[in-house]
């Protein structure tokens, strides 16, 4: 009988309490967990390095070798600096990372926010505080992406260029002293 490797989840949240909570919830579901407190750290962990001038250069990023195997990313929406939404976009724009399922968490129930995230490719949107029932919804997404990894990458190249210039209005320069995630 083959040994099933545990899924590795990267959890991103600037709140220490929420990181403790999500880590415990995920571990209860037998996931391996890494937590980081910012989107920037998440991207570093995933192997994407920020271009000094503006956004992440995906063509450069794909050169960087990834040692880490992350099966799912779960991120808070509202964070100082880069938001969870920005992180989602960067991931979906990255050739090497776009197949990793991303889940967004938020303490606020804002339909336009939820829709924007789902349209950008988030698999799920969880309202905080996150419950065990929410975490139980993750396994199907992980099983799906585990199988998808075997598929032809070329089809996804076209999709990549199509998605890249979508919805520019959401990107603005980060205000590092305040939360900028108004609906």
């Amino acid at each position, binding site marked *: 009988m083959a040994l099933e490797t545990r899924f590795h989840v990267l959890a991103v949240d600037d*709140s*220490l*309490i*929420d990181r*403790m*909570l999500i880590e*415990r*919830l995920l571990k*209860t579901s037998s996931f391996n967990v890494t937590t980081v407190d910012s989107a920037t750290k998440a991207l570093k962990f995933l192997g994407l390095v920020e271009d000094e001038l503006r956004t992440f250069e995906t063509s450069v990023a794909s050169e960087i070798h990834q040692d880490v195997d992350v099966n799912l990313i779960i991120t808070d929406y*509202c964070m100082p600096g880069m938001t969870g939404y920005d992180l989602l976009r960067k991931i979906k724009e990255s050739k090497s990372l776009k197949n990793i399922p991303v889940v967004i968490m938020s*303490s606020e129930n804002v339909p336009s926010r939820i829709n924007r995230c789902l349209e950008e490719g988030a698999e799920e949107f969880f309202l*905080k*505080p996150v*419950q*065990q029932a929410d975490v139980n919804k993750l396994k199907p997404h992980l099983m799906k992406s585990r199988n998808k990894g075997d598929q032809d990458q070329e089809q996804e190249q076209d999709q990549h260029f199509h998605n890249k210039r979508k919805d520019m209005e959401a990107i603005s320069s980060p205000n590092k*002293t*305040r*939360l900028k995630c108004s609906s």
Partner: protein
Amino acid sequence: MTMDVNQLQAKLREHQSAMFQQGFLDDQFSQLQKLQDESTPDFVLEVVTMFFDDSENLLKNMARCLEQVPADFKQIDAYAHQYKGSSASVGAARVKSVCATFRSFCETKNLDGCMRCLQQLQQEYSLLKNSLQYLFRLQNDIKAAGGSFS
């Protein structure tokens, strides 16, 4: 005179029940308790301790901001948002509720309202902290007496 385990357990149940009934705690606190097991026997205590630290920082920061002239309502709102989030995460229902009111006063730039909310928050936090510390003390006493609690 020391109480026996049964008496302590009864006291704990009564105290915890009261905290829920009086709205100090909501279901989220029960969720935290469910996440605690033999492999993480201090999970609730750790999270709550973190919450206490967080609370004290936030209350101090909010007080400092409200003393500034003119008050930076955006910054105060950011703190209130943070506090609302963390209180929701631990099940501190009354604190969370006051934070929500606080945020609406920030939105309307109502300094008086904000000041009153801050005072209320300090009170609610103090009450909650005392109650939870008593709860943990009872749990410790039960453990020390060789008992357990669900």
